[in-house]
């Protein structure tokens, strides 16, 4: 069975459970603080950092304004280079297309490059239902898959696991899926990585079909770009006969030269490196159309909407589609640090998850409607986002939409807060209660709050939009949902 976020509880409930897990909190805290530190050093190294961010935001806005022509360009260029382009309105359609393509090859086991989109649409489970075993090959994705777990971060999906947990998963599971873990495996990270190398090597060498996502899709040239560290991406993109790339329609960038902006921002912001070890780019089947023995002989590109056009229609929210999945917003987020990624009930956790999931899926579901409340509005994410997404604007706008939605009529408005997550469960409840005691509150233009919420109100003018804490909101609407 492949686990999924289907039917996941709303954020307050899920968060309360996760916050009680001491080990998880410690793992997440350590990992996020490490990446934060590395990122800060590498961003500071570029005196033109803010200019790169300006350019990235501006280019992505051009993408959103010209999406139709970009996609048509991609289709034309990929087709001309020997690839086949497919379009999928939603997850079910995308899964059906990929499943049919794999079935046509007759293969029962395929390899995958880590892709958040294929996690979003639940591709592994769909393939499994069709009798096809899709093996993840990124180390963290392998840890998640072997542990029958769910991803908790967009860059490091197994960030919630420590080395001992990983060792135990490898020892227990590797043998059931291929080459077993070496005898006497310790929990040294280098040994664990070596165990994964050995386990996956035979899968790469035998794989006939690979599935990937893409970090960028260049409209002008039809070029796909995959950025990775381990070489598992290169293995999949190079050794399989058939390559199927499943890409969200918002991943385009207008021109080849625009990559100079995104490739300089992405690794610095994601992992605190100047460039990730490997960046692979390809256009269809290349100049020889696959005849030179370099790379696959068949290439399929599946362009997926799955809610992106819904987000695009939201004037404030559409900026969330600029996201290049660097993970910096989750690494910096005080709420994510306490709850980990699973509380968000989606492969997109943290601040981007709090806005992107409701924008992709709509606010009718109590789970997605709870996410805009999963924030203290401290604005730290605004400061690190390489494409300058204004999270606080979008969060407030979405809260207003929840309040105005009719489904959850506004009886009162209180300041949204997750202050309690900051410490532990008892403090969480106490803080939530204290927020509750603030009672009906329409915010004046400027307000000073005590405690963990004080910081942002010192420096920021608060727009007077009706808001309430997500816990208050949850309590109030829980009955409606049932």
């Amino acid at each position, binding site marked *: 069975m492949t686990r999924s976020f289907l039917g996941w509880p709303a954020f307050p409930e899920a968060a309360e459970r996760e916050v009680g897990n001491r080990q998880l909190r410690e793992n997440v805290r350590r990992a996020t603080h490490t990446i934060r530190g590395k990122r800060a050093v590498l961003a500071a190294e570029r005196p033109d950092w803010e200019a790169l961010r300006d350019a990235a935001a501006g280019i992505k806005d051009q993408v959103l304004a010209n999406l139709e022509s970009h996609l048509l360009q991609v289709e034309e260029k990929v087709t001309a*280079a020997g690839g086949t382009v497919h379009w999928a309105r939603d997850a079910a359609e995308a899964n059906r297309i990929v499943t049919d393509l794999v079935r046509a090859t007759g293969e029962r086991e395929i390899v995958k490059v880590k892709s958040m989109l294929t996690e979003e649409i639940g591709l592994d489970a769909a393939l499994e239902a069709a009798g096809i075993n899709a093996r993840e090959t990124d180390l963290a994705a392998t840890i998640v898959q072997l542990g029958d777990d769910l991803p908790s971060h967009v860059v490091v999906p197994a960030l919630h696991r420590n080395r001992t947990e990983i060792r135990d998963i490898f020892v227990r599971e590797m043998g059931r899926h291929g080459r077993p873990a070496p005898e006497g495996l310790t929990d040294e990270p280098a040994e664990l990585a070596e165990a994964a190398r050995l386990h996956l090597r035979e899968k790469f060498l035998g794989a006939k079909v690979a599935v990937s996502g893409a970090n960028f899709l260049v409209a002008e040239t039809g070029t796909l770009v995959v950025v990775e560290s381990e070489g598992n991406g290169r293995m999949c993109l190079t050794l399989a006969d058939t390559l199927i790339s499943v890409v969200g329609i918002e991943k385009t960038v207008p021109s080849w030269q625009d990559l100079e902006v995104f490739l300089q921002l992405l690794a610095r912001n994601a992992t605190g490196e100047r460039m990730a070890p490997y960046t692979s780019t390809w256009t269809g089947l290349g100049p020889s159309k696959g005849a030179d023995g370099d790379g696959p002989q068949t290439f399929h590109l599946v362009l997926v909407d799955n809610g992106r056009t819904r987000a695009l229609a939201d004037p404030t929210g559409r900026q969330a589609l600029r996201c290049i999945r660097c993970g910096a917003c989750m690494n910096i987020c005080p709420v994510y640090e306490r709850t980990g990624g699973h509380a968000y009930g989606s492969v997109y956790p943290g601040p981007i998850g709090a806005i992107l999931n409701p924008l992709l899926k709509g606010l009718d579901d109590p789970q997605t409607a709870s996410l805009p409340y999963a924030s203290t509005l401290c604005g730290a994410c605004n400061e690190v986002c390489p494409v300058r997404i204004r999270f606080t604007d979008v969060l407030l706008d979405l809260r207003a939409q929840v309040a105005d939605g009719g489904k959850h009529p506004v009886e009162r408005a209180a300041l949204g807060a997750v202050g309690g997550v900051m410490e532990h469960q008892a403090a969480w409840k106490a803080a939530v209660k204290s927020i509750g005691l603030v009672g009906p509150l329409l915010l004046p233009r400027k307000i000073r709050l005590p405690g963990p919420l004080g910081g942002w109100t010192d420096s920021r003018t608060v727009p007077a939009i009706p808001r309430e804490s997500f816990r208050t909101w949850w309590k109030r609407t829980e009955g409606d949902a049932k």
Partner: protein
Amino acid sequence: MTDARTEILRRIRAAAVPPAVAPPRHYLRHAPGLDETDRPTVLALFAERLTEYGATVLRADTAAAAVAQALDGARSVVAPVGLPDEWTADWSGEVLVDRPLLETARLDAADAVLTACTAAVAESGTLILDGGPGQGRRAATLLPDLHVCVVRASQVHSALPGALAVLDPGRPLTFISGPSATADIEMIRVKGVHGPRRLAVVLLP
């Protein structure tokens, strides 16, 4: 029933996104803190960044002796089509020419691969291969555990924008910035997962 393509394009038009202004491009086109025309400084930065990754950097006037030194300990090396013969002249191990195409298992069993590159970036210590003469197909630079790459000084750009401008996006490209690595376990950097675990660069004038 409309097809998916028509429907997605219709939804995009219906979203009515207003036109966007041209993006500001005030970022640097060269590596910060140096004069791009000062070649010795650019090359020194390239060597420094590669060394930081744990790559070996050998600067030499001609390739043969440095290549032999970089390949020390290897018994076999994959030689892509178009690789200059003189690069392996000083080395006594087995040279596996990739024509006819070597079997995947043969590539996997080889100790090393020797290639040229098409461009390089000093600031990030990046090598860029486009499958042209002497660079090999992608599988050849992936499976052997040691990659030795010969770079000419004139191929080194100080920063990424200069390198992107000379590349052909129609070709399959691989940008290599240090050896394969992961930080997926507790954010501790481990060198060497699936790609070559060792990288050596021979930098020619």
